[in-house]
């Protein structure tokens, strides 16, 4: 049903409220038909940025372009963007069908065509049978679908979604994530999705832009961000990480060796501006830590002895907290092939290869 999807370019956009920089010099290009997520904690400026794209917030500086055409001065109603608000913002005095017909009515679409397109849009979200209900008679998930149908029915040039799933319970959220992604594939429209939920961002997006304090911290495909976070914040916000703060001892081809307290580790990957004696920060995902009963013989592995301080069982995995000479480390081990029997106080050996961890910038 979507006609032509368009690309959006955000050029050095800032929004200041007095001394507060809600959005601070953000540039971002969102390609046609992509599913892009703006991810950040509350107060990171992601919603302000979305509102600037939608036209509800005028940027203090910078431009927003839709296929080379600047849209910054246009009011929201002239932008032709579909929008799903947090809490859906369905009109309580209109039925489901009237809600979906609203964008067509204000566009003076002929009556017969409205009826046809509303029916199509409701069929798209499988709600045809509820057309005559009032929003308050629907469940949260159904309301969310009505909001989607309403935002898509007028064939917008892109779809903006402001935490559309945050009000729903966990199971329903997971279902609707799948549905939304499927819908995205079917309509082929550019989706710009705002959320603070990193799992949601990872599972749905083609690309994630991580915001913090109004600034764009890092942008890229979910796997790239997860595997190669650039900063401590990204490594910590997107998934979990252990952090090793050390001092560089030796620079080698393709990596460097560093020391945390009395423990020595090696790290693969570019050493960049690091030199011997400078501080290095390394992030290590809990699932990339091996937990062993005895120290492995492989000299290429980083090895760290410790004792289990706490553990919990999640069916699929054990989550272990291990006290080590360099501080407490988190490790996640698949439950079906955990090489040790977890018990509090039990001594273990943690091991990871030099390419399992990643150097990040402290911020």
């Amino acid at each position, binding site marked *: 049903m979507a006609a032509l999807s368009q690309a959006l370019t955000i050029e050095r956009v800032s929004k200041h409220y007095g001394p507060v920089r809600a959005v601070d010099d953000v540039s971002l290009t969102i390609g046609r038909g992509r599913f892009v997520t703006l991810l950040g904690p509350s107060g990171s400026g992601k919603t302000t940025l979305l509102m600037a794209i939608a*036209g*509800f917030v005028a940027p203090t500086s910078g431009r927003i372009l839709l296929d080379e055409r600047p849209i910054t001065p246009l*009011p*929201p109603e002239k932008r032709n*963007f579909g929008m799903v608000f947090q*809490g859906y913002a369905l009109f*309580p*005095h209109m039925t489901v069908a009237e809600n979906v017909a609203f964008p067509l009515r*204000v*566009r003076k679409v002929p009556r017969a065509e409205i009826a046809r397109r509303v029916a199509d849009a409701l069929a798209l979200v499988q709600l045809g049978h509820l057309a005559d209900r009032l929003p308050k008679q629907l469940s949260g998930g159904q309301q969310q679908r009505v909001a989607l149908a309403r935002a898509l029915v007028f064939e917008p040039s892109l779809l903006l979604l402001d935490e559309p799933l945050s009000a729903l319970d966990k199971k329903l959220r997971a279902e609707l994530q799948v549905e939304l992604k499927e819908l995205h594939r079917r309509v082929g429209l550019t989706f710009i999705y705002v959320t603070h939920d990193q799992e949601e961002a990872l599972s749905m997006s083609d690309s994630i832009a991580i915001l913090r304090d109004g600034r764009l911290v890092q942008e890229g495909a979910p796997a790239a961000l997860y595997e190669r976070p650039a900063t401590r914040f990204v490594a910590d916000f997107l998934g979990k990480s252990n952090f090793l703060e050390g001092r560089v001892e030796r620079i080698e081809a393709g990596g460097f060796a560093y020391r945390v307290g009395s423990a020595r580790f090696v790290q693969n990957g570019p050493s960049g501006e690091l030199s011997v004696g400078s501080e290095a920060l390394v992030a290590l995902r809990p699932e990339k830590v091996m937990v062993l009963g005895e120290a492995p013989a492989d000299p290429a592995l980083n090895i760290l002895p410790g004792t289990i301080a706490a553990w919990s069982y999640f069916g699929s995995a054990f989550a272990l907290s291990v006290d080590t000479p360099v501080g407490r480390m988190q490790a996640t081990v698949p439950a079906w092939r955990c090489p040790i029997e977890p018990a509090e106080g039990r001594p273990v050996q943690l091991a990871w290869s030099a390419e399992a961890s990643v150097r990040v910038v402290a911020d």
Partner: protein
Amino acid sequence: MTRASTARFLGASLPWWLLILPALVLMLVFYVYPLAEVLWISVTEPEPGLGNYERLLTSPAVQRVWVTTLRICVITTVITLLCGYVVAYALASAPLRLQRWMFLFVLLPLWISVLVRAFAWVTLLRRQGLINEALLATGLIEEPLRLIWNEFGIAVGMIHYMIPYAVLPLYASMRDIDPRLVPAARGLGASRLEAFRRVFLPLTLPGIIAATVLVFIFSLGFYVTPAILGGGRTLMIAEYIKLQILDLIRWGLGTMMASTLLIAILLLLWLMSRLVDIRRVFGQG
């Protein structure tokens, strides 16, 4: 209910009934009884029958009073609602801290005697009043405008008095509107005006109905303001009743007008109760 449980029920609730008894007696003696008396007089004085009520159809004087009253009340209600809507909108969209101050200024007139306010309008509107003097001094007019002792003066005074009564129910209905709805409408392609007309206005409809009926009913019974600002030349019902009973001692006619007014108001209230939830109008719920 068995006898035992009836006794238990009475036993449990009797103390509460005793508590409201004084108020009940007060109501019966000083409110219900005189009202019944008014109704009784209207069908017995000067002779038994519906003779007094017949005048509604036959007496041009009575009809003129009704027409004048209704006209002033309609004008007052329409203008009060327009002004009240704007004030309520400003209130509802102001930041919370500012809202408290705005509320104070909306409610302030309610704490000033209606008599004081009517005389304040007299000093402003009369021939040598502030407004006429100022307009004359600037040369905008050559003759003083007739701003008082006519329907215009009455309407000004009544609108001023009634605005808080319109603001409160309107504000209550606006406060309940999800603040995202109007932006949502605009995001979906509606201009500011259209978003207001199709979304905001229909959602305030219960408030509008409530405010209309409230203001209209209050306006029907106005006495002091029309008496002072009308200067005796424009008669509204309340003043007409007072004239009949106190000055002309025509109790039958006076009580008939009073009864008709009461019945009209009860009818209006009943109509409103069919259209909106009355408890919400007065701030509950």
